[in-house]
């Protein structure tokens, strides 16, 4: 196994040892052991940079489940490497942060870190797997570990609910995606993403192409919290803050982005891909930013902010995909992709720091409610600084990295108006407008986040504990992140050739690498372009809104914190449960007669339908044996006696008539030359009659039966139909038999019974020799029944007496 493969598996392997380390070395915070792993991996992945920068990629594969085409293959190109570095880089920062955030005495650290490592490994697997099915495997593990982390404080109702919601939604997406994956494998005959991309030209004409696209996108959208699937993300904030910082802003939620970008070479260049991504992205962007403004909880603000930013990246990928429509792309089209990749990176840094800051506030004050917070600026200056930088970057203010990517974003949106493909003409104008409005609100919630927490008056009564600045250990990680925010903001081109260009190259595959469009050169000053005016307007209008906040914060729409889309989820879930109950109650009535009715009706319909469909009715009177007078009389009386049974109201009488019926049947067996059967029938019938009598000792008399009028007629109909069905098939089978002259296997048995088995009574020879197994088993059945009766009669236990 190559080292790279092991790198992906390392977190999983480590996870196995965590509980042991936790148990044996209680005095050391378990996080320290964990910390090493992402750190080492980060270092390891850094070593790939030179190679990848040069446009190479790393590929290694071992076979796992070849029957399904699953190879455990590691594929490292620019796009994957960017993610791997994010995962491990943010990873060790988060672990470091968590060491101070989670108390080693009170918290179940072994669980926490196992989940975290599970996630880390899975996430690496997602971004480094070339085999889409293996990617899917890791994809679901990320959902699962996310669930476990959200439910980490499993005694809290909200944690559990949040975990459930996030899992249901993301796994819904996952399962949908699985369908898409299957379609992809059918379309292309491979599970390797790179091999699929190689077939992109022909695949587009495949009838499954669009379906596969939509299914894959549903998976990506749920994971990346795109409207209307976004609702799980705010509820996921119940997880410990390190988790929110890591999974729910920096990494996992970007898995959808990763996937969309990864598949852009395959699906990109089509109108559907363009429209779906850009419109869902923009809606999410707008919706997220509008919603974030309403939130009163610091982490909720950040959650909606994340949703909004993810929407933004998604829309950029959509816009950028247009590049693939053309054989020769130009900068207009690739710019969006650059913006997407760049913002993805930036978002990880500033959002990570903001989450950590929010966590610190929560940790030190015991609350995240902005209505209670305020005036922390002086008490927690470091945290304040971190928050200001992070928020400013998020709001798109210079000189931070967020400003740069936001500018690129505006540029991409305005460029769309110049497109002339995908019948975009009339709609294009909405792109910049929506983006711009969303940015205003982004500015606004950033302001709320910072000033409501750190500005204003400090109200000590609101807090249950003494408030002070966080320990330095907790501050290190966010400080590192804001440092990156600042440095990249000032010197963006540090990362652009190293990380961004290779990533874009991966996404824009099929486009010549030396094309000028790939020259990623990020600069601050574009001149007085439209984008700059847009930014200025954002700041002005945003400030204005914040200033007038007192006026509009009493609007009811502002008061309503809970996302109305949740109503859909709640309604859906409630509806699911209640309709399940309804459906189940309808069929699982607990009444035997209902069950038998359903079964019988199904039997009748299915058999009769088949009879008609295959014209299987038949009646061959000529081939039948003759009917003598006395037989006719016997049969007539027999039928009468059978028909009479339901009408008999005395139980002993009913049994007597049953005895008649049984004896009649024995007589039929005689008439039809079956002496052994006749004897058995007689004996059994008599014993059964006696058994009835024995049981009657305990049973009540028969009552007159009164069916509900709604059941009386169906009951008769069902019974009659069952009878007719049996008879019709019997006659059909008989006619069929007459029509085909087959020699039954019993001929052999008759011919060889005396010579080969030494018996003249062929029936007995069949029983003890030809079909001896049947016979001993039938004895077994009878014996079991006998022991069963004994058990039923003698053993009586109470409910719950044992397990």
């Amino acid at each position, binding site marked *: 196994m190559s080292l790279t493969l092991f790198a992906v598996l390392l977190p999983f392997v480590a996870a196995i040892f965590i509980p042991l380390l936790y148990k044996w070395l209680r005095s050391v915070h378990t996080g320290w052991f964990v910390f090493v792993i992402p750190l080492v991996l980060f270092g390891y992945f850094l070593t790939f940079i030179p190679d990848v920068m040069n446009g190479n990629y790393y590929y290694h594969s071992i076979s796992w489940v070849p029957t399904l085409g699953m190879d455990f293959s590691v594929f490292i190109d620019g796009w994957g490497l960017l993610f791997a570095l994010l995962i491990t880089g943010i990873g060790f920062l988060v672990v470091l942060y968590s060491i101070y955030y989670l108390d080693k005495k009170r918290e179940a650290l072994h669980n926490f870190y196992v989940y975290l490592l599970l996630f880390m490994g899975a996430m690496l697997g997602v971004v480094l797997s070339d085999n889409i099915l293996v990617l899917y495997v890791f994809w679901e593990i990320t959902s699962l570990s996310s669930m476990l982390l959200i439910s980490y404080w499993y005694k809290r109702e909200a944690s559990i609910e949040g975990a459930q919601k996030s899992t249901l939604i993301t796994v819904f997406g996952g399962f949908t995606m699985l369908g898409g994956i299957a379609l992809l494998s059918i379309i292309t005959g491979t599970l390797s993403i790179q091999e699929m991309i190689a077939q992109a030209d022909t695949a587009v004409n495949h009838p499954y192409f669009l379906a596969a696209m939509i299914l894959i996108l549903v998976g990506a959208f749920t994971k990346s919290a795109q409207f209307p699937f976004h609702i799980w993300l705010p509820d996921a904030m119940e997880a410990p803050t390190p988790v929110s910082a890591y999974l729910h802003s920096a990494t996992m939620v970007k898995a959808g982005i990763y996937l969309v970008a990864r598949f852009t070479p395959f699906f990109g260049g089509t109108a559907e891909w363009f429209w779906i991504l850009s419109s869902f992205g923009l809606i999410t962007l707008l919706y997220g930013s509008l919603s974030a403004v309403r939130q009163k909880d610091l982490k909720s603000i950040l959650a909606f902010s994340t949703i909004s930013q993810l929407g933004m990246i998604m829309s950029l990928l959509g816009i950028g995909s247009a590049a693939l429509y053309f054989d020769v792309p130009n900068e207009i089209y690739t710019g969006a992709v650059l913006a997407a990749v760049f913002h993805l990176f930036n978002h990880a840094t500033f959002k990570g720091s903001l989450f950590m800051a929010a966590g610190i506030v929560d940790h030190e004050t015991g609350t995240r409610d902005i209505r209670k917070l305020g005036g922390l600026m002086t008490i927690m200056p470091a945290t304040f600084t971190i928050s200001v930088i992070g928020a400013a970057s998020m709001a798109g203010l210079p000189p931070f990295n967020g400003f740069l990517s936001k500018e690129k974003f505006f540029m991409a949106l305005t460029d769309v108006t110049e497109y002339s493909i995908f019948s975009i003409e009339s709609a294009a104008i909405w792109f910049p407008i929506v983006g711009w409005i969303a940015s205003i609100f982004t500015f606004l919630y950033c302001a709320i986040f910072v000033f409501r927490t750190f500005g204003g008056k400090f109200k000590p009564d609101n807090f249950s504990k003494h408030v002070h600045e966080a320990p330095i250990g907790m501050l290190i990680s966010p400080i590192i992140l804001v440092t990156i925010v600042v440095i990249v903001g000032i010197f963006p081109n540090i990362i652009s050739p190293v990380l961004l260009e290779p990533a874009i190259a991966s996404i824009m595959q099929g486009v010549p690498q030396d094309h000028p469009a790939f020259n990623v050169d990020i600069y601050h000053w574009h001149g007085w372009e439209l984008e700059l005016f847009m930014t200025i307007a954002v700041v002005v209008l945003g400030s204005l809104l914040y200033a007038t906040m007192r006026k509009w914060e009493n609007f009811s729409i502002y008061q309503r914190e809970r996302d109305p889309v949740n109503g859909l989820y709640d309604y859906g879930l409630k509806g699911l449960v209640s309709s399940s109950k309804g459906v189940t109650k309808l069929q699982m009535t607990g009444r035997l007669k209902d069950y038998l009715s359903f079964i019988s009706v199904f039997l009748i319909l299915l058999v009769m339908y088949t009879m008609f469909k295959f014209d299987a009715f038949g009646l061959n009177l000529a081939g039948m044996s003759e009917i003598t007078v006395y037989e006719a009389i016997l049969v007539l009386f027999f039928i009468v006696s059978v028909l009479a049974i339901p009408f008999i109201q005395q139980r002993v009488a009913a049994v007597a008539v049953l005895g008649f019926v049984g004896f009649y049947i024995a007589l039929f067996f005689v008439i039809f030359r079956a002496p052994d059967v006749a004897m058995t029938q007689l004996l059994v019938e008599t*014993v059964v009659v006696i058994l009835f009598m024995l*049981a009657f000792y305990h049973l009540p008399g028969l009552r007159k039966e009164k069916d509900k009028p709604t059941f009386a007629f169906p009951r008769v109909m069902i019974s009659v139909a069952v009878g007719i069905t049996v008879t019709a098939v019997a006659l059909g089978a008989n006619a069929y038999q007459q029509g085909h002259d087959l020699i039954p296997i019993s001929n052999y048995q008759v011919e060889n019974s005396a010579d080969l088995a*030494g018996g003249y*009574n062929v029936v007995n020879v069949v029983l*003890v020799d030809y079909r001896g197994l049947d016979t*001993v088993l039938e*004895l077994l059945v009878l014996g079991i*029944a006998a022991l069963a*009766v004994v058990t039923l009669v*003698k053993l009586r236990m109470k409910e719950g007496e044992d397990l």
Partner: protein
Amino acid sequence: MSMKWKTNNLLFIHITRVTAFLILALSIYLFFAGHNNPGGGFIGGLMLATSILLLYLTFDRRKINKMLPMNYANWIGAGILISLLTGLIGTIVGKPYLTQFFDYFTLPFFGEFELTTAVLFDFGIYLGVGGSALIIILAIAEDT
């Protein structure tokens, strides 16, 4: 039972004494006859049960239980085992399971007769069926 009928069952008892034995003999006969004539383990076994049942019908449980202190559950086990194990005879000589063997022998006085493993097999059935039928009847009857 609320009713306390005192009954003299003279006729019934006397007749049962005769018929029960006849049925028992018939049962044995039917068992042996089975291979060549109607009958066999099942029928014989059920007849066996019937003859004992008749005793129970005529007399009472206490009396018959004392007279025939049988553990019918063991009959079942034994019956099943006999039938199953007879089948193994074949495997010893390399034939498939449940292979039955037979041969004709001549003994002075008795004349020619047939020995067959099938009879042994059938005896298991006989025993098991008889035991089963009886245990069923008695279990329900005793539940008072």
